[in-house]
C-alpha cells in the first residue's frame, strides 16, 4: 500500500486538525514535559489533559475548537508519552505531581478551568478533590471509572487470572532495559492502533502516527516509552475515583460515550448519576465511544464551551 500523503510538517492531514500554535519544554521539577498550546498566548488559560497511552497531539482536532472560542488551551505530554521525557518510574502519583507543575506554570495561585479525557479526567477528578483551589471548573470526558470489567469467576479462576497478569507484567519488566516498540509503516501502526480504537477513522489514526511517532531507518515507532505497558494490576480500585465526585465543590460536567471500547472504563452512565456533585451534570452521547472529542469534536466542543461560559 502507498504511504498516505503528508503535509509540509511531515504529518498526515485531517479535516479540522491543527498543529499547536506553540510548543516548548517545561521543567517539572526534573521531568521534561513537552507543552503544546493552541490559541492566543494572552487569552485565559484552560488545561486539557490526555489519557493513558495518548499524547497531547490527540487533541489536534478538539483543542483548536476550544481555542477558537477565545481560550488559551494548554496541553502537555505526560511523562513517558509523546515528546516528554522517558523516566525511570511511572505512577499516578508521579503524573499528579507533574500536573501540579503545569498548574503552577500556567496559572500560579489562580484557579483555571480543566478538561481531562480518560485517565486525564480521572487524575484531575482525584486532584480536584485534594486541591480544589486550583480548579475553576472541571470537565471529565469519559474518565469516570466505575469498576474493573471482571466477569463472575470462581475463586481459582480469579487466582489464575491474577497470576497471569502479575507474571506477564514481571516478564515485561525484565525486558524493559532493552525493549523497543515494534516498527512498521504509517499504515501498519495506524491499523495496530485501530484494534484498540475501532471507531476512529483510519485517516485520523494515520495522523496520530505522524504526530505521536517517529521515523527511523527500519520504520515508524510510537514515541511512548516502551517500558510502559497497557493494563496492569495493583491495589487501586477504579471506583475510588467515582467516590470523590459527590464532594467536588467546583462546577462539574461529565461527558460519557455510551459505546463501550477497550481503552475506556466501561462505566454505565446509570452508575455515575447518583454520584454527581451538587449542581453537576453528565451528558451521555449515545452513538459515541470512548474518544468523545475525536468522534464528535463539534458537539463535544459546543457542550464544553457552553458549560465553561465566557473565558473572562
Amino acid at each position, binding site marked *: 500500500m502507498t504511504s498516505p500523503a503528508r503535509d509540509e510538517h511531515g504529518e498526515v492531514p485531517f479535516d479540522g486538525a491543527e498543529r499547536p500554535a506553540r510548543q516548548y519544554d517545561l521543567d517539572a521539577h526534573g521531568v521534561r514535559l513537552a507543552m503544546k498550546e493552541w490559541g492566543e498566548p494572552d487569552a485565559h488559560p484552560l488545561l486539557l489533559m490526555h489519557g493513558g497511552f495518548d499524547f497531547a497531539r490527540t487533541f489536534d482536532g478538539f483543542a483548536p475548537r476550544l481555542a477558537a472560542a477565545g481560550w488559551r488551551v494548554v496541553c502537555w505530554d505526560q511523562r513517558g508519552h509523546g515528546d516528554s521525557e522517558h523516566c525511570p*518510574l511511572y505512577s499516578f502519583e508521579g503524573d499528579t505531581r507533574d500536573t501540579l507543575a503545569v498548574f503552577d506554570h500556567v496559572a500560579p495561585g489562580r484557579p483555571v478551568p480543566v478538561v481531562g479525557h480518560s485517565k486525564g479526567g480521572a487524575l484531575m477528578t482525584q486532584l480536584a478533590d485534594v486541591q480544589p483551589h486550583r480548579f475553576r471548573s472541571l470537565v471529565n470526558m469519559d474518565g469516570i471509572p466505575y469498576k474493573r470489567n471482571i466477569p463472575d469467576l470462581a475463586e481459582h479462576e480469579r487466582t489464575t487470572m491474577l497470576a497471569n497478569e502479575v507474571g506477564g507484567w514481571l516478564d515485561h519488566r525484565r525486558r*524493559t532495559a532493552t525493549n523497543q516498540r515494534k516498527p512498521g509503516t504509517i499504515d501498519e501502526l495506524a491499523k495496530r492502533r485501530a484494534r484498540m480504537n475501532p471507531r476512529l477513522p483510519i485517516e485520523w489514526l494515520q495522523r496520530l502516527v505522524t504526530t505521536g511517532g517517529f521515523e527511523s531507518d527500519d520504520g515508524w515507532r510510537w514515541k511512548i516509552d516502551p517500558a510502559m505497558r497497557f493494563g496492569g494490576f495493583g491495589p487501586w480500585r477504579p471506583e475510588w475515583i467515582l467516590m470523590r465526585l459527590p464532594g467536588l465543590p467546583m462546577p462539574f460536567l461529565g461527558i460519557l460515550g455510551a459505546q463501550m471500547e477497550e481503552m475506556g472504563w466501561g462505566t454505565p452512565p446509570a452508575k455515575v448519576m447518583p454520584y454527581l456533585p451538587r449542581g453537576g451534570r453528565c451528558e451521555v452521547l449515545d452513538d459515541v465511544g470512548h474518544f468523545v472529542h475525536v468522534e464528535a469534536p463539534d458537539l463535544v466542543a459546543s457542550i464544553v464551551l457552553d458549560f465553561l461560559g465566557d473565558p473572562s
Partner: protein
Amino acid sequence: MSTVSLRHNRIDLALHELRSATGTGRPLLLLHALGSRSPDAVPEWAHTWPGAIAALDFTGHGASTVPRCGGYSPELLLADADHALAHLVADDPDAAITVVGTGLGAYIGLQLAGARAPRVHGAILLDGPGLAGGPTGPSSHNHFHLPSDGRAPDPYALMELGRDLRPADYATSFVRLANSGSPADTPIAVCATFRPAWLAAVVDAPGVIDTTLDDALSTFA
C-alpha cells in the same frame, strides 16, 4: 561481600552477595525495610542458612540508582526483587529461593512469593519500617515536590512507599497465589509482632504460619 549490578529499566540495582553458595542449599534473599539498605555482612540470625545469601538494595535505596521525581510503588519494588530472583536462579528451571523481608521488604517478599510462586520456597515476614503502609481506601493524601540531591534514601521513596494503598484483600491475593504454586507446603511465615490490617489478614489465611524467625528459617532451609 561482592556486589553485582542488575539493570531494571533505567535503574541499576545493587545486589550484594553476602555469602556464596556453601553447599546445595537454596539461596536466601534479604529485602530491606523502607528507608534502609542491605546489610554489609550476613546477619547473625542467618549464619546457619545452608545456601548462598544475597541482599538487594531497592530502587532509590542503598547503592541502587536514585531516580528523579519519584513514581514509586510496591509493585515497582516487586519487579526489583524479581530481577534479583532471576539472577539468583539463573538458568536452572528447578531452582527456587527463600525470601526474608523486613518492614516494607516483608510486603514485597509476600508479593514475590505469590507472583513467582514456583520459584519462591518460603517468604519470611519481619517487623521494620514501612510494614504498615498507607490507607486501605480512598484518602485525601496530597502531592508535593520534595527537595532531592540524588542521595539515598530518596525522599520520594520515603513519602510514596510510606503511604501506599494496602487493602487486606489485595495482600491475601498473593497468599492465594503462593499457595497455588509454591513448592513449600506453607509458603508464608509471619514473624512480625506488629500486624497492620493487611498482615493480620495474611496471618489468618490458609498456608500461612505464625512463628519465630529461627523456626521459619528451619522450615524453609
